[in-house]
C-alpha cells in the first residue's frame, strides 16, 4: 500500500477489500500447502524411524516366539509368561482377545504392523507360524526417546516459518503486479487532471479578477444580468479548479494552521455562493453563532465549506432553502434537495463517484471533504431522506 501513497492514489474500500481477500486467500493457500508438506515430512521421518527399529524388533519377536513355543509345550509343567527387560509384550487370540500383556501402552492396533503410540512407544505386531497358547498376534513394545519428535518439530517450526515469510514477501510482490494496471489507470487520470488544471490556471484567474474589477452599479440591467451569469460561470470553474488543484497537490501543500474565526469565514463563503444560490432562487437560512474559533488551515476549511455549500446548491430544488447552523463544536448544512439512498450515502466519499449526472462536477468534492476531515479529526455525518433533503453535520473536538 506504500507504493500507492507515493503515487497519490487512494484505493476505494471495495478495491482494498478485494486485494485483502486475494492476499488472505493466497496466504491460506500457502498455509495449506505448508501443512500438507509438513504432514508428509513428519510421516516420512516417522516411517524412517520405525524402519530403523524394525530389525531390532524382529529379533525380539523371534526370541519371544521361541520362548512362547517352549511355554506351550511345557504348559502343564510351568506357566511363567516370557519376560525381557529390553521389551514388553502381549499376546492376543484370533478374536483379538488379550491372553496376557506386559505392555505399558494399552492402546493396541492389531491391524497395523508397526506404529508409534501417543505415549512414545513403538508397537511391532507379528503372527507366529502356529497359535502357541492360542496366540495369533504377538505385540512387542519398546520405548522411544521423546527427543526425536521435539527436534523434528523444532526443525519444522523454523523451516515453515522461513518459508511462510518468503511466501509473504512473494505475495506482496504478486499483489503489486496484480494492481499495477489499476494503479496505472488511476495515475493516468490524476496526471490528466493535473495537466488540465495547470493549463486552466491563467484563463480562470484572468476571468475572475476582471469580473471583480467591473463596476456593476454603472451597468444597465440587461448587461448586469449577463455579467452575473459570467460571474457564476467563472466562480464555478474557479471552484472546480480549486478542487482539482487541492486534490493533485494536497500531499505537497504544507498546512498553515492557526486559530481562525469560523463565523467570519462561513459568512464570507456564503457571500461568495450567494450569486450561485440566487440563480436557483435558493434562500440561505443562517443561524451562525459569533466568535466560533477553530485551529485549522484557512484554505482547507474554506474548501470544506465550499464543497458542502456547492453540493447543497447543486442538488437542491428550485426555490428551495439551505439552512446553515454554526455552533460551538459543529457546523450543520441542511438542504431541501432530492436526498440520497442508503447505498449512495455509503459511497459518498469515493473519488469520481457521482450520483446525479444531470448536474455538473467531477465527483471529487466530497472526497476532498473526507481528506480534510481525516487530517483534522473532524467528524462528518451525513443523513438524508429521499425528496426531503440532506443534512451534513461537521463536528470537532472542544
Amino acid at each position, binding site marked *: 500500500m506504500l507504493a500507492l501513497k507515493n503515487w497519490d492514489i487512494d484505493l476505494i474500500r471495495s478495491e482494498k477489500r478485494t486485494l485483502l481477500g486475494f492476499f488472505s486467500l493466497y496466504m491460506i493457500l500457502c498455509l495449506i500447502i505448508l501443512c500438507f508438506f509438513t504432514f508428509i515430512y513428519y510421516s516420512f521421518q516417522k516411517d524412517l524411524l520405525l524402519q530403523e527399529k524394525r530389525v531390532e524388533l524382529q529379533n525380539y519377536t523371534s526370541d519371544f516366539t521361541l520362548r512362547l513355543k517352549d511355554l*506351550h509345550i511345557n504348559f*502343564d509343567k510351568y*506357566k511363567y*509368561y516370557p519376560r525381557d527387560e529390553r521389551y514388553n509384550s502381549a499376546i492376543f487370540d*484370533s*478374536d483379538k*482377545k488379550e491372553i*496376557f500383556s506386559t505392555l505399558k501402552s494399552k492402546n493396541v492396533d492389531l491391524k497395523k504392523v508397526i506404529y508409534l503410540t501417543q505415549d512414545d512407544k513403538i508397537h511391532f505386531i507379528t503372527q507366529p507360524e502356529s*497359535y502357541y497358547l*492360542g496366540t495369533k498376534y504377538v505385540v512387542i513394545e519398546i520405548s522411544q526417546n521423546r527427543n526425536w519428535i521435539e527436534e523434528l518439530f523444532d526443525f519444522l517450526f523454523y523451516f515453515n516459518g522461513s518459508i511462510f515469510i518468503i511466501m509473504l514477501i512473494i505475495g506482496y510482490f504478486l499483489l503489486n503486479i496484480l494492481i499495477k494496471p489499476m494503479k496505472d489507470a488511476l495515475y493516468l487520470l490524476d496526471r490528466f487532471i493535473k495537466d488540465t488544471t495547470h493549463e486552466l490556471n491563467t484563463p480562470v484567474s484572468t476571468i475572475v479578477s476582471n469580473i471583480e474589477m467591473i463596476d456593476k452599479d454603472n451597468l444597465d440591467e440587461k448587461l448586469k444580468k449577463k455579467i452575473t451569469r459570467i460571474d457564476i460561470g467563472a466562480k464555478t470553474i474557479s471552484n472546480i479548479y480549486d478542487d482539482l488543484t487541492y486534490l493533485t497537490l494536497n500531499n505537497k501543500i504544507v498546512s498553515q494552521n492557526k486559530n481562525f474565526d469560523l463565523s467570519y469565514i462561513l459568512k464570507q463563503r456564503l457571500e461568495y455562493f450567494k450569486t450561485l444560490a440566487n440563480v436557483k432562487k435558493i434562500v440561505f437560512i443562517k443561524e451562525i453563532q459569533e466568535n466560533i474559533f477553530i485551529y485549522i488551515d484557512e484554505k482547507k476549511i474554506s474548501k470544506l465549506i465550499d464543497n458542502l455549500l456547492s453540493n447543497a446548491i447543486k442538488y437542491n430544488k428550485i426555490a428551495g432553502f439551505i439552512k446553515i447552523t454554526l455552533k460551538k463544536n459543529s457546523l450543520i448544512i441542511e438542504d431541501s434537495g432530492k436526498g440520497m439512498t442508503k447505498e449512495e450515502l455509503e459511497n459518498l466519499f469515493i473519488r469520481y463517484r457521482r450520483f446525479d449526472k444531470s448536474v455538473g462536477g467531477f465527483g471529487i468534492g466530497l472526497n476532498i471533504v473526507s481528506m480534510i476531515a481525516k487530517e483534522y479529526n473532524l467528524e462528518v455525518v451525513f443523513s438524508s431522506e429521499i425528496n426531503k433533503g440532506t443534512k451534513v453535520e461537521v463536528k470537532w473536538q472542544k
Partner: protein
Amino acid sequence: MAKIIIVILLTLCFSKADIYEQNCVTCHQQIPVSIDKFFYRYLLKYSSQRAVKVALFDYLKEPSKDKTVMPEAFILRFDIKKASTLNDKELKEAIDIYWDKYQVFGKLK
C-alpha cells in the same frame, strides 16, 4: 435353607462335570495320550475360544481324518473315534467344561 441351596448347586456342578467326566475322560483314559494334549493341539490350530469350541463340536459330531488335529501316526495307531452319542446341548456342555479346565486365560503368571 442355605444348606439346600449349596446341595442343589453342588449337584448341578457335579451333574455338569459328569457329562464331561463320563463321556470324555473315561474313554481318553484308555489311550496313552492324556486329554489335555488334545486341547493344546486344538489351541495351536484354532486359537480362540469360539473357534476351538466350534472345531471340537464339528469333529465330535462327525469325526473324520480331514478334521482331526492329531498327527497321522496317531490316527494310524488309534484310528478315528466314533461320533458322539450326546445330543447338541450335552455336547456343548461337555466342551464348555473341557475349555474351562484347560484354557490359558488367567493362568499365566
